[in-house]
Structures are given as C-alpha cells and as structure tokens.
C-alpha cells in the first residue's frame, strides 16, 4: 500500500485538514461572488474578495479525468473529481477496482491518514 505524503499544513489551510480528521470535506465559499473554490484560499480567486468562509461540502461528485500511475511499485489512481458544488478537485480514487474507473463515474469522499498524522480526503465509487 502506497504511503500518503503528509500535506504541508499552514495557518491558511489548517481548518481543511482539521475537518478531514473529523470526516468532513470543507470548501471555501465567497460571500461576495457566491462561488465555491478549491484549493482553499483566504482571498477568493474568482473575485478577490476577502469575505470567504468555510462550508461543508456534500462529498459527492463525478470523475472528470483520471490516470493510474503504473510505473511505480504501488500503482495508484490520481483524478480530478467535479463535486456537486461545481468545483473540480484533485484527489485519488481508492478502495475500488481501478480497472473499472470511467469518466463520469459517481464517487463519494472517504478519509485517509497521511504520514505524520494529518488526514486527507479521497474518493471511492459511490
């Protein structure tokens, strides 16, 4: 099983990883332009407002694209998943048959421990 490298947690992104420890997927939402974004920033990348807040995502979506890295000892599947909130996020697809992954496949969030104790959201077949 591939070891999950630790994310570099900092003051700006800490809430995201704290929530993941509790099994929640957080997204940043902008109270000015009313759009979500990812990766999370203090300042909205769409309208540059600083009136952003954390909101809990549903944790469901569909596969936008994917690739299994095969030329390593423990192959794994990287993917972009488009969430119901309309944001597409980089992730891994896990705990499912990687030979049966397709674009458009429905997926749901699962939470996996990384090295060093942090938890990161990943996705599996819904």
């Amino acid at each position, binding site marked *: 099983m591939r070891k999950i490298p630790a994310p570099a947690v900092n003051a700006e992104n800490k809430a995201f990883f704290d929530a993941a420890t509790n099994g929640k997927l957080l997204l940043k939402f902008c109270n000015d332009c009313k759009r979500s974004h990812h*990766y999370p*920033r203090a300042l909205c990348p769409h309208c540059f407002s600083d009136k952003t807040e954390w909101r809990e995502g549903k944790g469901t979506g569909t596969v936008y694209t994917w690739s299994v*890295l095969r*030329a390593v000892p423990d192959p794994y599947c990287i993917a972009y998943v488009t969430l119901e909130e309309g944001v597409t996020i980089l992730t891994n697809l896990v705990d499912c048959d990687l030979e049966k992954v397709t674009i458009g496949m429905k997926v749901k969030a699962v939470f996996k421990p990384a090295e060093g104790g942090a938890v990161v959201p990943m996705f599996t077949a819904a």
Partner: protein
Amino acid sequence: MTIKGKAYLVGAFEHPTRKAPDKSVAQLHAEVAKGALEDAGLAREDVDGYFCAGDAPGLGPMSMLDYMGLKVRYMESTETGGSSYQVHVSHAAQAIAQGRCNVALVTLAGRPRSEGHRGTAPRVWNPNMPDAPFEEPYGLVTTNSYAMAARRHMHEYGTTSEQLAWVKVAASMHAQHNPNAMLKEVVTVKDVLDSPMIADPLHRMDCCVVTDGGGAVIVARPEVAKSLGRNRRRPLVRLLGAAEAFKGQAGGDINLTYTAAVVSGPRAFEEAGVKPPDIDVALIYDSFTITVLMILEDLGFCKKGEGGKFVSDGNLISGSGKLPFNTDGGGLCNNHPGNRGGMTKIIEAVRQLRGEAHPKVQVKDCKLALAQGSGGQLGTRHVQSTLILERE
C-alpha cells in the same frame, strides 16, 4: 512597443552531451555560453545582458554572472519552467528595443539524468507553495498530470493512443539523422503502443527523454546582427513576434482540454503579421506526445479537437508531411536538458532558418519558424510561450 524586427538571434548552441556525470551544472551553463558566443562570432565582453531561469545554480543570475565573469547592465531570471527561454528571448528583445542592452545571452543547463530524476517522482519547489498541500498527498507527478489531460482530450474529442503515437514516430524519423540524439532508433506506432504503460493513457514512448546538457542563444540588436552577418556569410534570423500566457486551475474551474497557447499563439501571430499556414517548420514543446497535439490545435494549425487527425499518417515528418516539426528529434528522442525543452526548440528553429539543419531534415526554403515553449504541467498550471522567427 512591438519587438517585431527589433532583435535577431545571432548565436545558438546545443551542448552535445546527453549524460554528464563528470561536469557541474555551472560548468554546463558556461560551456553552452561559450559555444553560443563562438557560433555568433562574439566575445564574452560583448555580452551586456544575461538571462537565466531556475535551472541556473545560485540566487537568480548572480552565481552564473560571477562564475562566467560577465559584466552586464541588464539581467533577468524569469522562471516559467521549460518555457522560460522563449520568454527570455522575448524579454531580451524588449530590453534591446528600449536600449537597455545590445547583446543578451540566455543559458540553460542541467543534469537530471546523472542526478537520477524520474518523471514518476514528485517535485516540490518550495515549502510555501499554496497548491502543494492539495497535490502532494495525491502523488501528482509530471507523467500522471499530463496523462489526465490526455485522458480528457480523448474523452471529449475521440483522440486515440495511435494518433498520439504518430507524434513520437515523426520525432524518431528525425532523430535518426541527429548523431547527438539520445534515442536514434526509428519506431513505429505499434512500438509506441507496445511500450510499457507509465501513467495511462501515456506509454513510455509518449514521454520525453531525461537528459543532461543544455543550450544557449544570443539575442542582439539589428546593427550587431548585420555586422556579424557580413562576417559569417549566412542568413540572419529575425524575431517577428512573441507572447507568453499562463493557465492555472482557476479556483477549481478545471478544463484540461486546452493550453495557454490559445492566448500566446494568436498574440505572437498578430505581432508577427503572419498566420499558422505561413509557418514552414514548427518546433513544438514535446514533454509528451499529448503536449504537441494540444499545442498544435491551440496555435491554430488545425481545428480544436482535430489534433489527432492532424498529427497522424506522418503529417509532422520533414519532407513528406505538411507541417515538419521538431526536426532535431525533439524532447521525445533527442534532448530534454534539465527537464526543460524550450531552449532546444529555439536552437533548432535557428538551424532551420539558417539552412544548417541536417540535410535529411532541412526544410526547403525555410523562411518562417515557430518555437513553442511549455513550462509547468498541463494538468495543473503552466506557461506557454511562443516565438515566431524569420530568415532575412
């Protein structure tokens, strides 16, 4: 202010090495600088502008200025990965047009092959990168990043692995004539499809080589170029148009089916006053076969989504295809020094316009060349840079 006609490429040199365990990175930078100066017929003392990117060891340009004993009045170290060198040529032309320097040296060198770099291992540039915490845990590497773009392109446009393979086949047809190429063997579509899957849908032969080495070019003002041209008795290479453009993840509004060349291409063509069908030879960044296919679409050599058809059946092969590309064998077969392929695209463009390419790949009456840089990753964020060059 336009840079059209304000600057010339007067020197170009590609280091012949592909593996340099016995050289330092600084030494390689200095060796390519010396090679480009000799090619131009200039002395080190003529250089009054210096440009380098993140491959140069040290803080910006400082260590290399010191190492090479350069005394310049203009310096710049814009870092956009493999597309840096097109950006440098463009910015050098701007500096020349503004009267801030006369002769600008641009160098690239690296030894990732000797240092054991692989495209399946992660690279983190800086602990404060805001995106890294959302990419590193998921094992984002160069190969699977481009693979995700390839997969989506296939999904939306029906692009196939066979079509991608034609890009490699064309590069290999050219590389067989390059004595310095790392891979000189001609390959077939079947060879590419039979090569091991690295990050599906990309096979091993869809990926560029990892090589040590480097290259340098010298940009000069017209008066300098013309005086050198009289001495060297060869065609001059004039910069007609240049542009750079960035594309990122847009806060999660992801669309991996196009590159920033949709912006850099039209801007450069407009400045040059030419159109894609006018281009005689295209030197296109080829980190992967998909990189070439998408860039050709985005530059307007074919309609969006028709890149697969465009690259097929040998259309990129010099002598038989409609658009000869990467006539040195490109990054796919010849050289990708320091994991950065922009410089070698400019160097081969200069060779072609001078008529100094290998006779087997030299494009007849080659008047207009396009040299495209791509830096970063198509799967996340990248900078595309376009140069259009003319024989005078």
